[in-house]
């Protein structure tokens, strides 16, 4: 099947499901309007969702994605406790700076998810992405190392392996 058609079908089904969840359906009119609006959304934006064929099996990717979400929530809780500690501490023990890390991912979606995850995890915030060189600039609230490889190990690697499984 052509990629664009596949993408449109996925968007249509997703939009319809979201519509059903959002409205308390009382009669057929609401279903008809839902189908009409889903079709509109599908024709306007349907071809953006899936742009490339994935090599991995979809079930395997879903399992990896769920695993990723669990890992992400855990890292997020840790991040919040760390920031809470820093903010409450009377001396403000911070040592901020902007470091550079490397990434092996090269898909737009994968890099977006990686940089968003880095922003929401302990002490790090993505400032900019250099897609050609596959580098990320990270503002780190407590710089442990300025070396690019050690920083990559410290910041990026905990998500990168799972994300490779999901997006490549």
């Amino acid at each position, binding site marked *: 099947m052509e990629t664009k058609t596949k993408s449109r079908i996925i968007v249509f089904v997703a939009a319809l499901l979201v519509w059903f969840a959002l409205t308390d359906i009382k009669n057929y009119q609401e279903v008809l309007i839902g189908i009409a609006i889903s079709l509109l959304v599908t024709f306007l934006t349907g071809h953006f969702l899936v742009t490339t064929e994935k090599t991995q099996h979809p079930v395997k990717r879903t399992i990896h994605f769920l695993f990723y979400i669990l890992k992400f929530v855990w890292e997020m809780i840790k991040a919040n406790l760390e920031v809470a500690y820093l903010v409450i501490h009377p001396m403000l023990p911070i040592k*901020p700076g902007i470091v550079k890390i490397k990434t092996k991912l090269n898909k737009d979606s994968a890099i977006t998810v990686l940089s*968003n995850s880095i922003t929401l995890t302990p002490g790090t915030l993505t400032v900019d992405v250099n897609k050609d060189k596959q580098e990320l600039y990270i503002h780190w609230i407590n*710089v442990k190392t300025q070396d690019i490889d050690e920083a990559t190990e410290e910041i990026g690697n905990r998500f990168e392996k799972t994300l490779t499984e999901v997006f490549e």
Partner: protein
Amino acid sequence: MTDTIGIILICIGIAFDFLGVLGLIRLPDVYNRLQAATKCVTFGSMGILLGVIVMQGFTSFGFKALIGIVFIVLAAPTAAHAVARAAHRSRIPLANVSVVDKYEEDKELKDETLKEEVEV
């Protein structure tokens, strides 16, 4: 029972929102403040919305809260990245305690190569 769990979640959310605001006041420069603002406020708002979901169950109301969580998780870090990048591009300096700025170094290199290209 679900009401109690929901209220506890909402209280946790409000506590983290408060810590985020405290960080916004106490930390020294725009980048550090963004760190506190994005992390704590995202987590805090997620806690509040999660509390709403637990209290309401999976009705259309609870589902709206769930969609709210998804949008916050997607939008908050993106906005933080945009603000940080814009701040750096308009030459807002890092706080004095900062130890390294690799972004600035690379940007200067890029500026120099640009100048050379113009001269040639």
